[in-house]
């Protein structure tokens, strides 16, 4: 990967992370690209995404959630710029068409879990920026749905009436692997 581009990508990371892991990240990136394990374009996407996650972690950890959202937007914008520059480098230096990358970015597979009972609360936390769609309902019809802007936690309150016992909670996002559900049993809701 182009040295200047790699340096620009590493500059997106928080300084502490960059100082500690920057050299290793750069080396691993070069190794993976040299070995044909990853394309330069995917490396750019991965590094930009990692930078957004690191900033989110740093800022959320200091309880400055509002600022974290703004910073994430700035990093995303910077990442888009770097991505555009990387695209120019890629097209200029490689014969392979970029459609392969488009396929990789469109990964989407819903995660489904069984529910032990109604009247439970489930904490969902996605660490990947984007919209996470959450649907609570029966196998035949959704009863309620909500969307959150990740990264961020959300509590799903399951319907409590016997006739509305949900058979599933379905959660989908661009990266379902990033959604974490605690194992059942989930604690009942305490009604005040």
């Amino acid at each position, binding site marked *: 990967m182009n040295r200047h581009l790699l340096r620009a990508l590493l500059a997106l990371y928080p300084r502490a*992370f960059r100082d*500690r*892991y920057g*050299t*290793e*990240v750069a*080396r*691993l*990136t070069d*190794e*993976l690209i040299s*070995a044909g*394990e*990853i394309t330069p374009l*995917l*490396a750019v*996407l*991965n*590094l*930009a*995404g*990692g*930078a957004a*996650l*690191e900033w989110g*972690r740093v800022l959320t*950890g200091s309880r400055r959630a509002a600022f974290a959202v703004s910073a994430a937007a700035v990093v995303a914008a910077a990442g888009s710029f770097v991505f555009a520059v990387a695209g120019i480098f890629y097209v200029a230096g490689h014969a392979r068409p970029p459609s392969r990358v488009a396929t990789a970015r469109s990964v989407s597979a819903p995660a489904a879990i*069984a529910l032990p009972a109604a009247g439970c609360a489930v904490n969902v*936390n996605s*660490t990947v920026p984007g919209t996470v769609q959450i649907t609570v309902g029966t196998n035949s019809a959704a009863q309620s749905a909500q969307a959150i802007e990740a990264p961020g936690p959300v509590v799903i309150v399951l319907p409590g009436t016997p006739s509305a016992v949900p058979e599933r909670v379905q959660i989908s996002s661009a990266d379902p*692997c*990033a959604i*974490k559900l605690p*194992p*059942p049993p989930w604690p009942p809701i305490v009604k005040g």
Partner: protein
Amino acid sequence: MTKDAVRGSSDRSILILTSLADWPKHGYALVKDIEGFAGVKLGPGTLYSALAKLEQAGLVEALPAEDRRHPYRITAAGLEFLRERLTESARIAEVGLRRIAVASS
């Protein structure tokens, strides 16, 4: 960074801890090993974000650099954490498979 924070993160942490459970590895060896046993190819940003989290939680530690890169080793706390998580996953898998069998019969 606490163990709870690691627990709340993605399963990439478990993949890394599993990879380090036998012996220390550096970044490239981790990527190849995880791809081999889990079919998941971690990118450089993803891998080091997870490693940073695990290191801050005291679940892995960096060994002295070899050829300008650090091998990483799982700690005793990391082994215990991994054991708990895998046991928990096995229990959930058992319940899930039993229910699938009942539903299929």
